[in-house]
């Protein structure tokens, strides 16, 4: 099966119902994306498929054929730079396990909405669980990332 991940083409020999998460971690060695619940409940495994945030732990790899997967390792600079700067500035993570999913979900929000309100952030992020409850810092960092993104463009 031909897959495109972070702009690179891969030929993988896997069952068509294998979750995308298994393929990117175990077959391609891209370990940034995390396994959280395995049931699309927590958001830790969020990646982008043709720009859409998806829960890779339940999405069969057959869904990605002919499409572009982007993981946190391949997030484009327009989004990754302001998000990384904001996350660092606000010192968002505690244990950090869910943060890949948080950032990938935040990236979709920032791409589609230059001026997210608190409500927009809640709408976009309430499906990403953080057991350290860093939610207030995530909200603050998304506001900052939006400002940084605007000032750099």
């Amino acid at each position, binding site marked *: 099966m031909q897959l495109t991940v972070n702009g690179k083409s891969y030929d993988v020999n896997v069952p068509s119902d294998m979750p995308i998460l298994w393929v990117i971690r175990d077959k391609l060695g891209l370990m940034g994306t995390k396994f959280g619940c395995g049931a699309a409940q927590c958001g830790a495994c969020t990646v982008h498929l043709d720009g*859409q945030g998806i829960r890779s732990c339940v999405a069969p790899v057959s869904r990605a054929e002919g499409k572009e997967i982007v993981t946190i390792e391949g997030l484009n600079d327009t989004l990754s730079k302001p998000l990384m700067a904001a996350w660092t500035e606000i010192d968002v993570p505690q244990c950090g396990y869910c943060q890949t999913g948080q950032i990938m979900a935040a990236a979709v929000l920032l791409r589609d909405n230059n001026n997210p309100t608190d409500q927009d952030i809640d709408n976009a992020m309430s*499906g990403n669980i953080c057991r350290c409850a860093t939610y207030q810092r995530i909200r603050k960092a998304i506001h900052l990332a939006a400002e940084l993104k605007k000032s750099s463009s």
Partner: protein
Amino acid sequence: MAGVIAVCNLAMMNNKIVKQREAESKAAFAEAYKVFMHPRCMNCHPAGDVPLQGDDSHLHTQGVKRGVDGKGLYAMKCSSCHQAANLDGDHLPPGHPNWHLPTAARPMVFEGKSPRELAMSFKDAKFTGFKSMDQIIEHVEHDKLVQHSFTYGTRPPLSHDEFVAKVKEWIGKGAAIPDK
């Protein structure tokens, strides 16, 4: 004199037939209503902008919202979790390629409606967006997402065929509005 009596009898008979059809139409709707209000149907026709889940029709976890097109918001689109087909296993998302709620402009709310209120809504083109009552039949009979509602979890109390038959009977016999 005999002619007048005959006309009166005919009118009474017609009236009786009309009343009978109306009663049958209402009875058919009462049966179909059990399906409309079953969680497999109503969960995607909520009163608010949050879909419902489960047999107790609780608010969808994760704070999922309708969005303008009925397909969710940002990284919380329906298809972020719901795949093209049901996933095997407990508590895994059911799936269909066209998983969605009605749009924000036409939310088609079922939740909280009495049979009378729901039947009146179905006869309102602004509610359904349909040009004729026949399109309601078309929707319940052929819409893939409607059909899919009969394939997973606790099933509605009628089979899909029985449900379609009741909707057809309701409309075919005049789409009578229930009393309550």
